[in-house]
């Protein structure tokens, strides 16, 4: 699969202070690539450098070091921007315009003819669930969620080969989130790759083929979501529930278990290795208990995210 986005050692310093200017590194030597036809999740906590990266790719900021290319073109190429889309975090638009006027304006910037602009406006506004009666309302009267929908729709007006979405679910209610998630999920099948930054890990887990986790401006982990989770689950842990055994007695007889917890009549024991299971079961039987269940504990993206961002 070809790389649609390539980032090489990208860094960005911000200058702070008025008199004695101090440099703060917001992004530090980021290298990553995104393949065509996939949904790429760009994860990280607040201030990790996600928005800075997207702004660098959108040529809103100039890098201090490094380079990047989209569709094989350098990021400062104006022509390349004809084939990409972008929805900023908390999108801001001209509030005196209506969605129809906004789409007409943006369509003109992409050189779309009048009939195509009109057709795309109706198609996209319908797709993001904006009711027709709102199409001719000024954007200043829109709620945050409605603006988010307009933002997402406008990013697709040129049928881009890749769309950059900065926190696309921000401001949406649960139904809106589900609708937008479904819309994003179908983009790769229509030839649009997605580069999406998000805080909402369940969305990333449900949508993304590959992820990169950014922590304090540095890349903490990157790869296929499935591989990253499998890697972190190399040594699976197990949750064992026994009935009729006292937790205090088990703590003495099972020194290898990380957690032993009394839970309303039952006792929960966590085994760190599968080889520990037999010893735990024997100890439970010796304490007069009986087995209720054994389940492997699979690490979620949230666990991986917390582990990666904490280690820095």
């Amino acid at each position, binding site marked *: 699969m070809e790389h649609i986005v390539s980032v090489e050692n990208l860094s960005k310093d911000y200058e702070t202070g008025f008199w004695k200017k101090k440099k703060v590194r917001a992004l530090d030597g980021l290298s990553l690539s995104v393949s065509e036809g996939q949904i790429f999740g760009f994860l990280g906590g607040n201030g990790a450098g996600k928005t800075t990266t997207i702004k660098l790719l959108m040529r*809103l900021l100039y890098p201090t070091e490094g380079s990047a290319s989209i*569709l094989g073109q350098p990021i400062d190429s104006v*022509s390349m921007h004809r084939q990409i889309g972008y929805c900023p975090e908390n999108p*801001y*638009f001209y509030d005196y315009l209506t969605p129809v006027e906004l789409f007409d304006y943006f369509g003109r*910037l992409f050189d779309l003819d009048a009939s195509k602009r009109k057709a795309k406006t109706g198609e996209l506004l319908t797709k993001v669930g904006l009711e027709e009666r709102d199409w001719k309302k000024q954007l200043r009267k829109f709620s945050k969620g409605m603006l988010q929908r307009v933002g997402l729709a*406008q990013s697709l007006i040129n049928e881009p080969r890749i769309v950059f979405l900065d926190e696309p679910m921000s401001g949406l209610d649960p139904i809106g989130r589900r609708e937008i998630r479904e819309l994003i999920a179908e983009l790769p099948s229509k030839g649009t790759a997605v580069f999406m930054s998000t805080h909402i890990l369940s969305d990333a887990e449900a949508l993304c083929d590959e992820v990169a986790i950014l922590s304090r401006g540095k890349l903490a982990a990157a790869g296929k979501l499935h591989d990253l989770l499998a890697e972190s689950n190399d040594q699976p842990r197990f949750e064992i529930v026994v009935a009729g055994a006292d937790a205090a007695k088990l703590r003495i007889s099972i020194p290898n278990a990380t957690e032993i917890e009394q839970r309303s009549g039952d006792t929960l024991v966590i085994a760190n290795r599968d080889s520990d299971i037999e010893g735990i079961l024997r100890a439970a039987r010796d304490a007069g208990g009986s087995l209720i269940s054994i389940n492997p504990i699979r690490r979620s993206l949230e666990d991986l995210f917390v582990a990666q961002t904490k280690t820095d």
Partner: protein
Amino acid sequence: MTEPLSAGNPFKRVLAIAGNTFREAIRDRVLYNLVVFVLLIVACAILLGELTNGQEARTIVNIGLNALLIFGTFIAIFVGVGLVSKEIEKRTVFNIFSKPVGRGEFVTGKFLGLCLTLLVNTFVMGLGVSLALIYVNNSSLALSIWPAIFLIFFELMITTAVAIMFSSFSTPALSALLTFFVFIIGHLSSSLRDLASGLSSRMASLFLETVYFLLPNLALFSFRTEAANELVPTASMLGYAVLYSTFYCVVLLTIAIIIFSRRNFK
């Protein structure tokens, strides 16, 4: 993957940005208020004319054209300094620059949009003055003032370009102040040259000469008093003023584009 991508038609993008800038200005109620206000001033001029013994027409032209210049200058300065800074502050530039729009195209489009606004504004105000003159039975003056109005518009273009140039690197308030200074000095520039030639200090004289050459000579566009006396500028004067204004705007916008192209939008 690396197939050459077409950059599209930059003129169409500039026109789209200009059109949107014009629409924004028109939807801004301040502009409507100014037009109404100037029409009120013209009405006052008519009343004043009645007090000035047969000088109605001249009074109307004097008050009308000066008001037209002042209001046009206010619009050029206050809307001009906000043209780019407002887009940055409201973060609407994020959407624009992610699209195939060069920063030069953006600045040029914003400039042309405000010029179109000023053209419409100047035309409406000029029409108001002409109608007032027709009202006082001076139809010939109602027509002969238009070359002077044309010159005012080209002066306003320079003021707009100055405002945009300053706003590309400083705050709106400071840009407005600096543009206002340029407007004042620009109208006094011939006096500056006279002053420079009369000074004994070589350094002071050189400084004033430099200021004279760097700042626009806005006196070139001043034909308001003459217009009140039914004089009409020559074609060569009009042609020179148009060329001077165009050249000055191109230089100022080039500076603005160079500075704006280096900006980071945090």
